[in-house]
């Protein structure tokens, strides 16, 4: 109950800051449109909509990292978090309160991007729905990164870190180009990070290769669980004033 009350407050804080929200919804749609136009003038299929859409949707989730990180960071620097740390809420209530309001935003991002992709030629079938489910799971990974950043850094630092995060996570995700096009260390790093697996899981779901979803999605889930455990532990330490 307390987590729901806190989630409602966090939802209002996010949606009442519409510029960031519109940017988080609009930029991925714009990118998808631009890359589709580029594809039409390319002699080879680098940005086919069935390949591009899952990657861009995963890219859009990096804004969830920004939203959750900024909100938590702001609450910390304004002492709002101190006020609620003094209340009888548990660390679980806080974490859930920060996660829940971001899930409908993730769903909205998926819907906006999918509608754009359908407009740009993506065919609708049952695999699209499966991909939506896979994407919701992936969104938790990005929310987890935001919680971790927001717990460790201030809101101003989160802004700077987001700029680095959005670039690194997208380069290593295989959204714009496959990591094996560069190969070597770049490809090895990409395989170690969760981003390429997130995009691969979404692409596999959309293409109907359901068995190919399992391994990359498991890696994403593993990373997500790890991030949430670390964020919760750090959050508990923060609540006890230990760092």
């Amino acid at each position: 109950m307390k987590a729901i009350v806190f989630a409602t407050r966090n939802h209002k804080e996010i949606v009442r800051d519409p510029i960031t929200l519109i940017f988080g919804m609009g930029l991925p749609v714009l990118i998808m449109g631009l890359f589709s136009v580029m594809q039409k003038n390319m002699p080879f299929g680098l940005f086919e909509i069935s390949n591009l859409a899952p990657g861009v949707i995963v890219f859009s989730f990096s804004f969830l990292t920004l939203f959750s990180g900024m909100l938590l960071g702001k609450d910390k620097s304004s002492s709002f978090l101190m006020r609620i740390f003094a209340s009888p809420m548990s660390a679980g209530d806080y974490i859930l309160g920060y996660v829940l309001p971001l899930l409908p935003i993730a769903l909205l991002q998926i819907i906006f991007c999918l509608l754009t992709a359908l407009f740009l030629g993506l065919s609708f079938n049952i695999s699209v729905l499966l991909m939506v489910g896979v994407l919701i799971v992936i969104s938790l990974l990005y929310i987890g990164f935001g919680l971790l950043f927001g717990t460790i850094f201030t809101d101003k630092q989160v802004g700077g870190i987001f700029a680095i995060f959005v670039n690194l996570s997208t380069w290593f995700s295989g959204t714009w180009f496959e990591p094996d096009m560069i190969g070597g260390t770049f490809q090895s790093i990409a395989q170690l990070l969760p981003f390429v697996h997130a995009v691969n899981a979404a692409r596999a779901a959309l293409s109907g290769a359901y068995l190919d979803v399992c391994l990359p999605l498991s890696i994403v889930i593993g990373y997500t669980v790890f991030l949430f455990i670390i964020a919760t532990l750090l959050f508990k330490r923060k609540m006890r004033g230990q760092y």
Partner: protein
Amino acid sequence: MTIEIKGLTKHYKEIVVVDQLSLCIEKGEFFALLGQNAAGKTTTIKMLCGLLPPTDGDAMLDGESIVHHQVAAKKKINISPQETAVAPNLTVLENLLFMGQIYGCSKIEAKKRANAQMNLFGLTPRQSSKAKTLSGGYMRRLSVAMAMMSHPKILFLDEPTLGMDVRARRDLWKILSQLKGEVTIVLTTHYLEEVEMLADRVGIMHRGKMRALGTIQQLMHETKKHSLEEVFLELTEEDSL
């Protein structure tokens, strides 16, 4: 007795921030904790609010130990932190409802309490304004009103009038004086005029230790000084220990 502090201590490695603090505060008392910057006031408040674990010692808040029954102790208290600590995109009413509900009030009960607090703190005309649009004075009022939403037995006010203009500060004093007797209040401030106006008793901390405790008259008598400011300066001289 609402607050019983016994040997409360906080160390950060070798640095002692609060050193064996012991004192009792009566039910309904308005107690002012004074001290220079880094005297240990805010650390003391944070320990009492369960935001920092004490290195040693304990405190009983309305019978609940801050070490052994922290959740129960937290239900009895509330704090208005140094910064205004409001949710900026929520309206005045929404901020108050939020605070009531995280302390377990139903929506109806929270609304009832919010209306009462808005009346007391003069916030009713601004109930639909987003907190970020309020002036500094109104934001401080909202901050204290939010802390009152849980009907705490003990209210901690950490420099509640910091940065407020004279009129806004006096307006808030008027409101706080109405709370006297109803709730035990522990105030930290650098404004001695505020203490003279509101406090029943004063504690002066210096380098983590309680240097003096009593009413303003008692402290002036003991130190043979003519004002609280002189008492404060005498007791917080750097070589006074």
